[in-house]
């Protein structure tokens, strides 16, 4: 991957990648691994990009897919251990951002299922329902209903009514 490619096609969208990777990881180390893997996969998949969608949508899609795959792999690996908690010596990254409310929101998002996390991240990034549906392989009506439910659940978590 050339630096030019990184600078032109990844760096301007790094915020998207960071936001998604943060939602699927608990430690800084994992976050950096996921981020790097997403960058690598964006670069590797660049030739498959069809120009009927926006590059940012493409980056979203790859980021979500990579995070979901890595998370699945990680879960499979953890099945070999007695506990699926974070290993000793690795601190959970609960204050990745300097804004406290944002950290709370991220903690709440991490309590959602993998798919719900993806949907709400796209929603919070103000993606239209149709685009979210396209990325998630669903339809806009279902997405609308799902977003409503997720928001209700997030509110409960943030209010301390749901763990």
């Amino acid at each position, binding site marked *: 991957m050339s630096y030019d490619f990184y600078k032109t096609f990844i760096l301007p969208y790094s915020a998207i990648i*960071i936001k998604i990777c943060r939602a699927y990881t608990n430690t800084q180390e994992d976050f950096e691994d996921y981020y790097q893997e997403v960058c690598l996969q964006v670069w590797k998949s660049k030739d498959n990009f069809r120009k009927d969608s926006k590059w940012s949508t493409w980056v979203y899609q790859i980021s979500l897919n990579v995070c979901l795959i890595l998370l699945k792999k990680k879960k499979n690996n953890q099945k070999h251990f007695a506990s699926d908690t974070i290993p000793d010596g690795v601190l959970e990254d609960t204050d990745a951002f300097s*804004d406290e409310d944002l950290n*709370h*929101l991220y903690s709440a998002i991490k309590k959602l299922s993998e798919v719900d996390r993806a949907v709400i991240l796209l929603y919070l990034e103000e993606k239209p329902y149709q685009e979210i549906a396209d990325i998630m392989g669903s339809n806009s009506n279902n997405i609308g209903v799902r977003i409503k439910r997720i928001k209700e659940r997030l509110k409960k978590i943030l209010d301390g009514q749901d763990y």
Partner: protein
Amino acid sequence: MDKTIENIWKEGFIKSGDLTAPKINDLYNQKSIHIIDKIKRMNKINLIAIAIGAPLFLVITCFMHFPITGMATFVILAVILYVNRNLMKGFDTIDKGNNSYEYLNSFNTWLKLQLSINRKMAGFYYPALFLAVVIGLWFSPGVQQIFQEILAKPNEIYLLGNFPILWTIPVIIISIVLAFLGGRLYDFDVRIVYGPVYKKLEDILSDMEDLRK
């Protein structure tokens, strides 16, 4: 909760402004370690299998009354084990403090050397193993008895000493063919067992080379 999640999201990122992308400088560390560990583990299992298999085969062949095959095979496998154990020591000299690319590259160089030495050895040990089986069977009591019965009957077997010359010719031809094809047989063996993992190593290296451009 006063703020909506939409506001927390927007304001949070504006306030914190810390969406700095991590540096992509350690991209392949985990992958490199993973693939190297995998190859090392496979090699180790292979050597353990030889270390257990060789004496076991010796015992079995002794029970089956062709100990020459067992002993010859044991010696051949012991040599393979000794050479490969020494080669494994070379792996430990690779500087793990190198960056991922250099580490992986050094590992690849070591692996190629290991494969090339084993390939050369295969030209010797494939015919040697074949001869071990043939000679072992030859001198086994069962086969000796069959020979005696054949030789006792009137026949046209040409003997040199007590050896039926015509029968030894195919053995010699097969041994020569095995000596020539030993390297290729070894490649075939390696491809079956290690093929996918070696390919992965090559892919990672080629990716890293692209990445360095």
